[in-house]
């Protein structure tokens, strides 16, 4: 498939394309539902209700924060923006849209749909660190993290990528292909969400008993494989919506190219889960359900960068590589770097997203596209991680991210909600507290 070149001003959408994109975006919340279920299933049973209520609260807080402040900074392709002039080049670095979504109803159709896409994208990004901080992150702290992400951090990268920001203009200003390409949020949603997850995990620390002194990391498996695997199927529906809608909105793909983007999404996830299935079977003798779920999700994440750009065979290969990398990286992060990430989000969304962005650059026919993707990745890692770490560190000073020891011992459900998710079941005592 020949990639469509993103235009620097929003192209008018035909009525059919408008209806299609709107319909797809109304299905995109299934991705949020899938990730929320995955996060809950991968955590402990005694924190399940807090995890799912937290997901709801985080989506709500992210939407409100983005509406109040984030949408202004994110802007749209036809809204005003703040521009710096350095070395004879204009650097469009921040949106200057109207506050509180004023005039949204009168904006152009692509701008309205783009903003709806960003609302859903920021909610998905905010769920990623919540899964990594499972079983010890406080509900209010999770909401504060979501508010900071939605109001300050996500808008910056969304503007750079989707609203004629300096990354999108790398092609125009520096002859780097079509500029940084992120058709469905591999960078702005997934890599950014994974960087937030890393910052949260570093600040909050591991669950008690996860890394005993002088011993191996304690296995703390997810409590509900059904949630995890059903979450994967829900996520597929949401990802199809994000990837196809993103192809129309940000890549201006013609309607005839959309079925290929959908097929690519499915093939990437399928290749990834097949590869993870094989890797875990070879390593452990039997396939591992939670790692296979992680593999599936990493294939979907990689497709966020590539589905609108590559052929089905290339998409399958991208998924296969993502599926091999993910279980290995989950293990390395836990055993070698002592990162306690119950949902595996840092490997899934971080590595999967980075791999997708690199593959999109490597397989693009335009010269300079690979370098544009690398510059985008350098911006994400070089600015994104320090920025989110600093902001979450400040949040932690004001509102501690981590629950007290009692909360961890009795479970976040009882500690924060006063009741468990499964009141009729006897919960096992955890070995790490004996």
């Amino acid at each position: 498939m020949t990639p469509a070149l993103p235009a620097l001003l929003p192209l008018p959408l035909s009525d059919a394309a408008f209806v299609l994109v709107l319909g797809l975006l109304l299905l995109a919340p299934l991705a949020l539902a899938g990730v929320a279920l995955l996060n809950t299933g991968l955590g402990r049973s005694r924190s399940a209700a807090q995890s799912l209520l937290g997901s709801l609260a985080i989506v709500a807080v992210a939407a409100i924060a983005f509406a109040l402040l984030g949408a202004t900074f994110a802007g749209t392709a036809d809204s005003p923006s703040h521009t710096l002039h350095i070395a004879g080049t204009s650097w469009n670095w921040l949106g200057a849209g109207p506050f509180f979504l004023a005039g949204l109803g009168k904006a152009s159709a692509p701008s309205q749909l783009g903003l709806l896409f960003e609302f859903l994208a920021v909610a998905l990004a905010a769920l990623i660190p919540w899964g990594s901080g499972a079983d010890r992150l406080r509900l209010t702290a999770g909401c504060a993290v979501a508010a900071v992400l939605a109001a300050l951090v996500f808008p910056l990268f969304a503007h750079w990528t989707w609203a004629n920001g300096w990354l999108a203009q790398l092609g125009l200003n520096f002859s780097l292909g079509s500029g940084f390409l992120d058709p469905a949020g591999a960078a702005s949603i997934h890599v950014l969400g994974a960087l937030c997850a890393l910052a949260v995990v570093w600040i909050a620390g591991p669950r008690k008993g996860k890394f005993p002194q002088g011993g191996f990391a304690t296995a703390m498996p997810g409590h509900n494989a059904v949630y995890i695997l059903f979450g994967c199927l829900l996520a597929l529906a949401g990802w199809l919506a994000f990837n196809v809608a993103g192809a129309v909105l940000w890549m201006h793909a013609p309607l005839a190219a959309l079925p290929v983007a959908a097929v690519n999404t499915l093939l990437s996830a399928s290749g990834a889960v097949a590869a993870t299935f094989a890797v875990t079977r070879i390593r452990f003798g039997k396939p591992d359900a939670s790692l296979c779920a992680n593999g599936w999700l990493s294939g979907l994440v990689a497709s966020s960068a590539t589905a609108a750009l590559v052929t089905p065979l290339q998409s399958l290969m991208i998924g296969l590589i993502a599926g091999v990398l993910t279980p290995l990286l989950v293990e390395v992060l836990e055993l070698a770097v002592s990162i306690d990430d119950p949902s595996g989000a840092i490997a899934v969304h971080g590595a999967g997203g980075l791999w997708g962005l690199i593959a999109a650059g490597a397989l693009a026919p335009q010269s300079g596209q690979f370098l544009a993707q690398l510059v985008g990745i350098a911006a994400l890692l070089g600015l994104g991680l320090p920025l989110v770490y600093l902001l979450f560190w400040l949040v932690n000073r004001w509102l501690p991210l981590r629950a007290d020891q009692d909360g961890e011992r009795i479970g976040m459900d009882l500690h924060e909600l006063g009741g468990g998710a499964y009141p009729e079941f006897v919960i096992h005592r955890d070995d790490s507290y004996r």
Partner: protein
Amino acid sequence: MKYAGLLVLPAGFFLALAALVLFPANSAGARAGFVLCGLAVEAVGLVVAARGHLEAQSHKAHGDDRA
């Protein structure tokens, strides 16, 4: 050490950015080299930050054991 690693990350980013400003479009090799150097600096920053995290965690675990 973790903070030192986190401070190195923006340095890598500005190195990558400098490649675009300093080299014209026809010096693709030099540009790519500079950008790759920037990414390498970021990788070093990440490794240093991760090692700092490991050290801090190890100190904390020692403290917990004594308590």
